[in-house]
């Protein structure tokens, strides 16, 4: 299963409570669409740390890295390449 697919499944299941794939686009901003709030973002961070075996530093918690499925995918690829 691709990283994008896993992430989408996690967000749909835990924040949108649905299996309907059309409820979330991979480019949707979590902030602008009101998908995740300020405590929910910590749950996302815990999930990607555990699931993909990376550490997210405090200064990496920025929208460019975390504000959509696509942004997280890019961030993970960058982390793994480093």
């Amino acid at each position, binding site marked *: 299963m691709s990283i994008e697919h896993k992430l989408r499944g996690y967000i749909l299941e835990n*924040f*949108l*409570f*649905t299996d309907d794939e059309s409820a979330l686009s991979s480019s949707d901003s*979590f*902030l*602008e*669409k*009101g998908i*995740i*709030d*300020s*405590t929910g*973002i*910590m749950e996302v961070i815990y999930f990607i740390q555990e699931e993909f075996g990376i550490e997210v530093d*405090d*200064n990496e*918690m*920025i*929208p460019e890295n*975390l*504000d959509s499925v696509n942004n997280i995918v890019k961030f993970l690829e960058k982390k793994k390449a480093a």
Partner: protein
Amino acid sequence: MSQSLIHLLQHQAHRVPDNIAIVQKDERISYGQLYACICAVAAFLRENGLAPGARVGLLLENSPQFVATYYGVLAAGGVVVAMNTGTKSRDLVNWLKHSEACWLFADARHPELAAITTQMRDSIAYVIVGEHPNGSAITVGASWKQIQENGAVNEPDLSYSGQPGELASIIYTSGTTGHPKGVMLSHGNLFHNVNSIVGYLKLTGDDIVMNILPFYYSYGNSVLHTHLAVGATIVLENSLLYPHKILQTMEKERVTGFSGVPSTFSILLSRTKFKDYDLSSLRYITQAGGPMAPASIRRVIADLPNAEFFVMYGQTEATARLSYLPPDKLEQKLGSVGIGIPGVTLEVQDDQGNKVAPGEIGQIYAKGDNIMLGYWKDPQTTETVIQNGWLVTGDLAYQDSDGFIFINGRASDMIKSGANRISPKDIEEVIAELEGVEEVAVVGIPDEILGQVIKAFVVASPNAKLEKKAVMAHCRQNLAIYKLPKEVEFVSELPKTASGKVKRFLLADTARAS
């Protein structure tokens, strides 16, 4: 000078037109520019026949457009109904109908706008602010852009705007279908509360405040008005999702003030380090919106020793602010919400309305020019909270021998989560609609970051196959994100009194114990 917010703003626009009023991302709006936008909104509304006292809905995020619309409505003699932008269409439509709003200024990107236009049809006129990202134009009403291009030929005639006893704003604090609670604030309420806060915070035109609090709530609303009243600068960041970004902006803009609720500080303390940023310009920090742990206050003042820390307490029904703890008393009276702000009298009284002795617990009663006119179209509920000229706050407390107030719980069932005061009924009403739900009760349970989170106890109908996911999906569809239960537990029955009322305190105890 007349005593109202719009007159204060007009004064600053004439006095310091080049001072920066609002900063958002790369946009810097001066007082002169802001006032021109306000005049354009007022001219548009008047040209289109807005009657004095008519309600105008706002569905806008914190932005220069929000501010210009808010003040433009006041300048036109209208009443502002600024609504929670995180709310779903069922509440928004309910509030628009209940307030009988004749105009709605809405962000084109708002996810509920299409549902609102479908349900409200042409019973309300629209002004659409901005453009939808997909370019799918909303084809109703006027556009913000056009209003600003048309501008105003003259300054609005403010001679009939802002009379002290007249209604200026309605703030909805709950959304149940039967009984939405709309707090009515007069021009005088807003003016007096602003003046009092400006006084004890010693705000001046040199101040620059970082604001992350929504303007549609009373706390954010008072941050907005107090700083505009003195010609100060308000820097906007609209979310705590990425706290580093907030501290970076605070450093860059050399802010002098910061306001938050307890969860704001919990998030900043747990996910950032104040010491990584140069925040030496910070002169004052304010905290309201529920009790903050003394240990957290100590951590903030240890990391930001140059700033004075103001613990404050208030309610929407009191415009915003009722009390503050003077910073020089912070260490001595830690845990207290302080004393009445200038112009406000606070007393702790028993059920018979008698002032109790120091140390004894009673309910906080408040008097002052900031106390609301009442609840919109609801004299019965108004009578229960305004008695003999006193506001009955619903907060239990005691006063020490020096008169400092220490809050000791709430007499009502309201849930306080983050900056939000949530009526359990709002959530129960939604869950009860779900097929297979026989009964439901909702309580607040303690949470380290948010103060409280929501737990729902659900009794399923016999043979119903109900799962937590179905309950959550239904809530997600119909409730704002901050009203979503964190936990759902299925139980065989709810504990009740002999008269059939749910014993919420027992459920809350059960939830805490588990």
